[in-house]
């Protein structure tokens, strides 16, 4: 029951009235109220935090979303936008008394413009499907989160998602040209620009990465990138993790420009090799570096030639080159399947996501390992080394409360160390619920206050994804209100 009404009967009647209104908009397939069906929406990839939504709405397009949002606005009901629920920071965790608005039925590619290299898609289009729809035309969509087989473009926009190839191509924000947004009040905001840098504020740039707090993106215009003529994938094998990290710092300092630089440590390698994602990584290695170089043939050869002496100077044992597209796919499948493969180590996985200056990789990796070892936790590392974006992954069993406490403590210590090293709390997963308490360590009260003011002016009732990102500094929560009355915060 989400309405705070006086009598239960009246409350139930009101609830039924609202459900009827919403069902009339989205049809019977677009609304989930059955508790069994709602179970699947209790959390996103951050399974430590769960809350069953009151109902789930699955509108088919901008119009239906706008109508639903108007109804939710009328009754003051908080809502959480959700893509595929693959996020790892709790950004799509339902909120008390709230509704989930999912984009699972918005899966159409609305326009593909090969000449001007852009596509206009509905928010629920799966990341990898976007590339599939344009690769015959020699184009691809560059941001490639590890969850790209399932995650949606709308979710990528909300979290400003990354991926291994963001080292060269940049995070999602650099690939979004336009948006259609449904605001908290149900108004449709078209920021659908496929021209360059229009005058006025960069509302698209502001919206990307706003974690569902400014509106629901329903249509997205993305920039497509030409598929490079030549791609070389290398697997560099190291006898220890520290020199592997140092090699990355030196590659960056040498101003070499591969398109991806990824590190996998021994425990990750073993988990991958024991799984369906087995990629042929050497299980005796302490660490491997997965490198990809793209471009014209001469440029690729030149970059590889320059990289090798740097790798050798750091104790490179062996370098393997993918011989064909099949081998390349296999190497990447291992990398992208690494999180899934860790299910072999323990039933649950805490995926940290922190960033440090690229000159400090070795220190933070060493620190994270020590923190976990001291707490008798299993840590594995697989990360976007080229961007300084680490994913220390801690395997645990959530049924063991004491172990969960140790995991959370280790996660906090790693984040604090990153801040101390000049780093940040998230490189690609967002803040969500997971890191909100740490925000006040990174930002001053004034920094946070300005962000909150911006949020409040775009969603004055604070009904969009409430209780996320910002640290709780006072006991405030959004309560729904009856039609015609003013909203209340208590």
């Amino acid at each position, binding site marked *: 029951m989400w309405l705070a009404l006086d009598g239960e009967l009246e409350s139930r009647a009101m609830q039924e009235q609202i459900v009827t209104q919403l069902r009339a908009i989205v049809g019977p397939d677009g609304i989930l109220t059955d508790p069994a069906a709602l179970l699947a929406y209790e959390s996103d990839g951050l399974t430590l935090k769960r809350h069953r939504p009151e109902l789930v709405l699955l509108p088919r397009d901008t119009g239906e979303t706008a109508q639903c949002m108007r109804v939710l606005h009328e009754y003051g009901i908080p809502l959480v936008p959700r893509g595929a629920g693959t996020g790892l920071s709790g950004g799509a965790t339902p909120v008390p008394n709230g509704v989930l608005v999912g984009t699972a039925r918005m899966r159409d590619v609305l326009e593909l*413009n090969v*000449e001007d290299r852009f596509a206009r898609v509905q928010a629920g289009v799966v990341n990898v499907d976007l590339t599939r729809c344009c690769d015959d035309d020699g184009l691809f969509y560059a941001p490639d989160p590890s969850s790209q087989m399932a995650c949606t473009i709308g979710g990528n926009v909300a979290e*400003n998602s990354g991926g291994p190839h963001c080292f060269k191509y940049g*995070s999602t*924000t*650099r690939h979004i040209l336009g948006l259609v947004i449904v*605001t908290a009040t149900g108004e*449709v*905001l*078209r920021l659908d620009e*496929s*021209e*360059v*840098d*229009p*005058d*006025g*504020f*960069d*509302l698209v*740039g*502001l919206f990307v990465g706003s974690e569902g707090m400014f509106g629901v993106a329903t249509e997205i215009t993305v920039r497509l990138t030409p598929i490079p*003529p030549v791609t070389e994938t290398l697997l560099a094998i190291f006898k220890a993790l520290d020199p592997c990290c140092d090699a990355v*710092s030196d590659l*960056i*300092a040498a*101003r*070499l420009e591969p398109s991806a630089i990824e590190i996998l440590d021994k425990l990750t390698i073993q988990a991958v090799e024991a799984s369906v994602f087995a990629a042929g990584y050497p299980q005796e290695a302490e660490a491997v570096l997965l490198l990809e170089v793209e471009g*014209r043939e*001469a440029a690729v050869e*030149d970059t590889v030639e320059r990289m090798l002496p740097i790798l050798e100077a750091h104790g490179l044992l062996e370098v393997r080159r993918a011989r064909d597209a099949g081998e390349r796919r296999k190497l990447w499948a291992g990398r992208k399947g690494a999180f899934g493969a860790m299910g072999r180590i323990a039933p649950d996985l805490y995926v940290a996501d922190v*960033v440090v*200056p*690229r*000159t400090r990789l070795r220190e933070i990796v060493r620190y994270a390992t020590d923190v976990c070892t001291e707490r008798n936790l299993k840590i594995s590392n697989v990360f976007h080394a080229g*961007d*300084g974006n680490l994913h220390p992954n801690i395997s645990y069993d959530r049924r063991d409360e004491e172990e969960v406490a140790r995991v959370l403590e280790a996660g906090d210590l790693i984040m604090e160390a990153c801040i101390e090293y000049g*780093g*940040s*709390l*998230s*490189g*690609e*997963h*967002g803040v969500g619920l997971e*890191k909100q308490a740490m*925000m006040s360590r*990174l*930002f*001053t009260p*004034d*920094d946070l*206050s*300005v*962000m909150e*003011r*911006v949020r409040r*002016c*775009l969603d004055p009732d604070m009904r969009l994804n409430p209780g996320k*990102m910002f640290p709780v500094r006072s006991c405030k929560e959004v309560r729904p209100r009856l039609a015609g009355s003013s909203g209340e915060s208590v």
Partner: protein
Amino acid sequence: MSALLEALAKEGIEGELLGEQPLALPTNEVQVQAVLRRAHTDGIRVLPMGLGSKLEWCRPEYSSNADLLLSTRRLDTIVDYVPGDGTLTAQAGCTMAQLEERVRAGGHRLTPAVARPDVSTLGGVLAAGLSGPDRQKRGPVRHHVLGMRVALSDGTLARSGGRLVKNVTGFDLHRLYTGSRGTLCVLLEASLRLFPRADDHTHLVREEAELGGLLTRCANLRALESEPLAWTMENHGGPWRLHVALEGRGRAHEEDVRDVERVLDPQEVLRGSDADEAFDGLRDLEAAGGWGEARVLTRPSRLSAVLRKLDEEEGLQITAQMGFGELRLHLPGLGEVSSERQVERLGELRQILTPLGARLEPRTVQAQAHAELASALATQPALDWMHRLQDELDPKAQFRSPSFPGRRA
């Protein structure tokens, strides 16, 4: 000396008169904060600026309406340059030339490559949201701003982002501030992503009296695998000239040059420092406008049609970025034609461009034309969001800055 400057002087904040307007010249963030706090309390209208090279973008009455000009030019410290990390953090008053020189020594290149870097400050460039011809390869400047420190109209100091090449913590308010033209805040400090400086540079030019032949070559250039640093068409010297700037290393660079030569059949192929000079010339075309510049935005696929149509018009100097669909139009300025004629001319151009799917944006044009063009730039809901943001961050309408998005009526 104005009473306002005298009052500021008592707080240790220097200033001078610029024409008849008082200009505050704080030397640190605390002084900027003090100026803004006083302005907030006393209802003083402030126009933020760097060295003032883009003040022409304002509607003229905006700069004259300000009670106080506030320049960040004396906040000119390079805070941090980490060659091993490829990032630079600098105060807003550093000139782009100062920054370019510093990072060149570490093997990096700064983007955007703006016109007149010696008189353009970092804060001014970011506030203007300027990109240079290198946008072709690097993308727009807003993609490379990693974080910012700003002062709001009430003197609140706030940061967003950081100094990291990848970071999604908190809202990207620096994206909002970039290109906000002093309407939301005073930029104090920014961190930028840098790019490796290439070993080899080549600049190729072909000149033709007729536009048609060059447009055919452009279509063929688009199909090449080479990725130029800049790709610009212009008619500033009379005939049309197509420039392609390439950068790279060794054999791969030579391969790019050969491909472009084959398609372009250039009359000039400049190497090394000559190529750098030619590229600087391209940058400076952006500053050639004077009081009569407008911008045209369109999709790259529509550029040929737009250029053909504009080529039929008399008295236009055009710079077209062929890879990303931006044109600068340099019209006869107010010294050469009457104010009414400029308004009329811009109206004519808009009539020509709109059916082609291109839109005209004002830059240094007459006030009435500026207002008319700006009013058509965004849909009403988007304008509403912009106004709400302005009302929130500058509730007293204290910043007197360029007109778009303007203040809520």
